[in-house]
């Protein structure tokens, strides 16, 4: 296998290197790639869309259709992880902790249950008390991270970033919560159903905006047709549409990242986690 792999790799490499022979120089401003389509984007985008971040303009408007499917891919990944790993079965052996004393009870009989409430709480085999310092620092940091993530989503038009990056950062903040405390804390705060709904909802916002454009008599995702629905400068309607779309992306990505993480780290049991 190694040898075969080596040969395949070398062949591929040779093919690709052969192809590079006619490449324009790196950074050549006159290469076809940098002159044909991109000039239009660079010169006209701000005029047509009022969005200074060209990447966002192209991403969410000119090629918004791509981005919609990209979001769908993320949603699909989340759903796939959920379907693959989520495990609803009740474990036979269970552990409980007596909250006031901290005594840990190990229940082997699957029928016997303890009432989970003030006195007892569920616990996992590999439970480890979370670290105080990490916990406190993360507690302080998480809201800032979140506001930062939302800032990134909202400012996709002006600075790098956008729905996807913001969503990932927001998702990371949730992951951070799960890492610094434990997974149960996260799941208790943002429960599974909510994440699931949000994942679909995010993409739905995107598609929904497209469909609304369609029902307003435009093409799919043609934001300019949204103008009658939104107050404000009709010139900025495309920027607004992009913002709406980015928010949808952000929601979907956040939820998908959370789902993927939660399911991988707990093998779908939603218990202790990393």
């Amino acid at each position: 296998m190694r040898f075969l792999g080596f040969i395949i790799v070398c062949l591929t490499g040779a093919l690709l290197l052969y192809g590079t022979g006619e490449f324009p120089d790196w950074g050549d401003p006159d290469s076809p790639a940098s002159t044909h389509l991109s000039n239009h984007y660079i010169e006209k985008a701000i005029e047509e869309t009022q969005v200074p971040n060209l990447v966002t303009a192209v991403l969410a408007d000119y090629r918004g259709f791509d981005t919609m499917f990209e979001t769908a891919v993320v949603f699909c990944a989340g759903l796939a992880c959920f379907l693959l790993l989520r495990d609803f079965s009740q474990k036979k052996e269970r552990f409980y902790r007596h909250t006031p004393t901290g005594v840990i009870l190990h229940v082997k009989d699957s029928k016997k249950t303890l009432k989970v409430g003030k006195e007892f709480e569920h616990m996992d085999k590999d439970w480890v008390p979370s670290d105080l310092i990490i916990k406190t620092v993360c507690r302080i940091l998480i809201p800032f991270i979140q506001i930062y993530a939302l800032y990134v989503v909202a400012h996709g038009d002006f600075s790098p970033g956008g729905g996807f990056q913001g969503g990932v950062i927001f998702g990371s903040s949730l992951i951070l919560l799960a890492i610094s405390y434990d997974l149960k804390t996260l799941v208790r705060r943002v429960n599974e159903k909510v994440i699931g709904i949000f994942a679909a909802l995010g993409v739905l916002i995107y598609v929904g905006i497209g469909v609304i454009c369609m029902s307003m008599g435009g093409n799919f995702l043609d934001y300019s047709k949204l103008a009658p629905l939104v107050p404000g400068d009709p010139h900025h309607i495309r920027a607004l549409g992009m913002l709406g779309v980015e928010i949808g992306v952000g929601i979907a990505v956040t939820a998908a990242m959370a789902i993927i993480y939660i399911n991988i780290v707990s093998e779908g049991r939603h218990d202790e986690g990393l």
Partner: protein
Amino acid sequence: MIVSGNGFAKNDGKPTSTCFKSFFSFLITFILMFLTWIVLSGKFDPLLLWLGGISSFFVAYYFYDLLFPVMESGYGKVFFRFISYMPWLIWEIIKANFHLLYLTFHPRMKELIDPHIITFKTNLKSDIAITTLANSITLTPGTITVTADNDGVFRVHAIDRESADALPGTMLKKVAKVFGEEI
């Protein structure tokens, strides 16, 4: 999203804050978030401000208990004392770093250093105080906090005797003063 304070308050062994207090901590969080937003954004476009408001509200509404799990009246004072603690800390950090630089660049470094672990106990109670002390220790001369638990027991890894001897010392006092705790 489902909001529940219990996941966090429980660790402090204190009951969940009352309605008013939680509103207050929500408000503070909101203001803090909004300020952060403005610093981040740097734009005063009405739309963006609105978005900032909504975002701050969102974060504050769902995560206020993260930043201020226990709302107490003394936060303002603590804040100012903390600010005044900062320059001292930075100065200490700089000193520590020069010391460390000296160690690193010393040709016979391995003779100078003497890594070992020391343990000491403090009477600090609140999480935030313990954390501040632990991080300060980590940032200052040749010492890194290994563990710090709820009871205020610290294990510290020190790179040489000199650094180890300085602990807990002044820093503990200062931190205790900042958070108004007994030593």
